[in-house]
């Protein structure tokens, strides 16, 4: 239960203000990268892959690009904030305060969620300008929020266990990025061999992209119900894991 509401609000605000204070590093790159993807992949490959599921290739890849950005930003925010506090010795000043592990975890998760969500909404706007339809806006925003929350939780988990930036980069480069690419950003998984299709079905990013594609374009590999259930379970699981790890004090209390 949250009891120290002022402390919880203060830490959540700090986490949000932290990434806004360096918006050139936390907001702009995602937008630029997405624009580059749209131009390079969309324009270059559009002539070779005309459409998937009745949608032009340039438009088909946009929900995936958006989700990739949400995932990267949400994960990076909570992971880097936690690790940075550990390395700069500010974490002990936080851990001695009357904030419970639940209040601490949720504040970090909220910081990452807001960063992921803000990036997601900005890119959604760019995608809309690029011609992407948004069939169901509330559902679209809900999926962006859920995915930002779950990956922010995952980021916090990783950040707490990491001792260096190298370890954090390893997770980003060898787990998040490959899973993002294998989640069907640039293709339908129906275009994959059978073994890769099976593998995709346990990849949470596949369901994140599928859900958003359904909410925006009305096409997807997985059904909306399946994606929604998977995302809700994934969000609950990652949140519980992050809160539990914080409660153990592993790598932060000695």
């Amino acid at each position: 239960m949250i009891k120290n509401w002022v402390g919880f609000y203060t830490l959540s605000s700090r986490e949000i203000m932290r990434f806004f204070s360096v918006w050139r590093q936390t907001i702009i790159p995602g937008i630029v990268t997405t624009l580059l993807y749209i131009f390079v992949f969309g324009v270059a490959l559009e002539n070779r892959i005309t459409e998937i599921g009745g949608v032009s290739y340039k438009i088909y890849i946009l929900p995936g690009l958006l989700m990739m950005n949400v995932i990267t930003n949400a994960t990076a925010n909570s992971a880097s904030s936690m690790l940075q506090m550990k390395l700069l010795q500010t974490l002990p000043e936080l851990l001695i305060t009357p904030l419970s592990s639940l209040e601490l975890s949720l504040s970090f998760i909220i910081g990452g969620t807001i960063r992921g969500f803000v990036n997601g909404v900005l890119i959604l706007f760019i995608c809309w300008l690029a011609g992407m339809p948004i069939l169901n806006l509330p559902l679209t925003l809900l999926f962006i929020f859920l995915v930002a929350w779950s990956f922010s939780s995952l980021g916090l988990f990783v950040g707490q266990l990491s001792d260096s930036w190298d370890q954090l980069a390893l997770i980003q480069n060898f787990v998040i990025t490959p899973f993002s690419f294998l989640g069907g950003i640039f293709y339908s998984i129906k275009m994959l061999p059978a073994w890769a299709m099976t593998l995709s079905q346990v990849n949470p990013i596949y369901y994140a992209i599928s859900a958003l594609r359904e909410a925006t374009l009305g096409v997807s590999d997985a059904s909306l119900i399946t994606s929604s259930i998977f995302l809700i379970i994934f969000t609950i699981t990652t949140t519980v894991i992050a809160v539990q790890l914080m409660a153990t004090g592993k790598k932060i209390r000695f």
Partner: protein
Amino acid sequence: MNNNLAIKIINLFKSYENVHAVNGIDLEIKKGEFYGLLGPNGAGKSTTINSITSLVKPSKGSIEIFGKNIEDNFRFARSKVGIAQQEVSQDWFFPVEQLLYFQAGFYGVLRKDAKERIEYLLNKLGLSKHRSKKMRELSGGMKRRLQIAKALVHDPDIIILDEPTAGVDVELRHDLWTYLQELHSEGKTILLTTHYIDEAELLCERVGIIDKGKLIVEDSVNNLKKMVKNSSIEIQLKDELENKPQFLNDYEHHIEDKKINIIIDKPNMELPSIILKFSEKAIKIEDIHIPQTSLEDVFLDLTGRKIND
């Protein structure tokens, strides 16, 4: 339950793999007391105080703050304690004033309620001119001041300072000493860890000497000094001795040119009889000096080592 206690540590143990950082410490600090934990680096001082603030998870034992267990009543315990860590923290993002508002907020203090306290601390600790600066723009001394301001921002009843004057200049050290004495006079309980002898002697009402994870002795500074067995009398002679007088063999002593150092338990009491013995042998004395016993001597006496070895 003793209602007069601010901190009570019961049979505290902390091991890291095969290293026993704290090895069975029992400690009681009264409300309003200025207590010093003195010991060399690695003695277990920081581990002990970090256990009080839950940064360290004890392997065994328990800790109470104002009679309440710190695990069962963590919000109460943490809200009562303010700690300035030995290691100065860094923050890349926010200015000094904002950092203080954040720290107050973490303790549940609303922004409007924290304003007056923050203004007071900024002025008191000489940070007013630096309130808009980020930490990387501050000198080492200013960072230390900010560290202490953060520890005090929620106006805690117990203030724990882990080596607060380590690596700071003389001026800041003296400023801090004055401020700590002021806080003590306001009734705050202060626990100070230090390996500076003069700091502990000047500030602390009681001192605990900690070595190899054990509290080997604790008492008032004066009582601790009285425990030292090997005090001495330094006698400077007018002329060098031609023959060593027989009575000197009754004492442990060292002779170096015209200087005689007599090792003795109670130098003040023995001094008149020693002077008489020199006088009877017509040995002229030019100067007599009884070196003041310090806590360094106490530590040396108890452990056979110097505190800063």
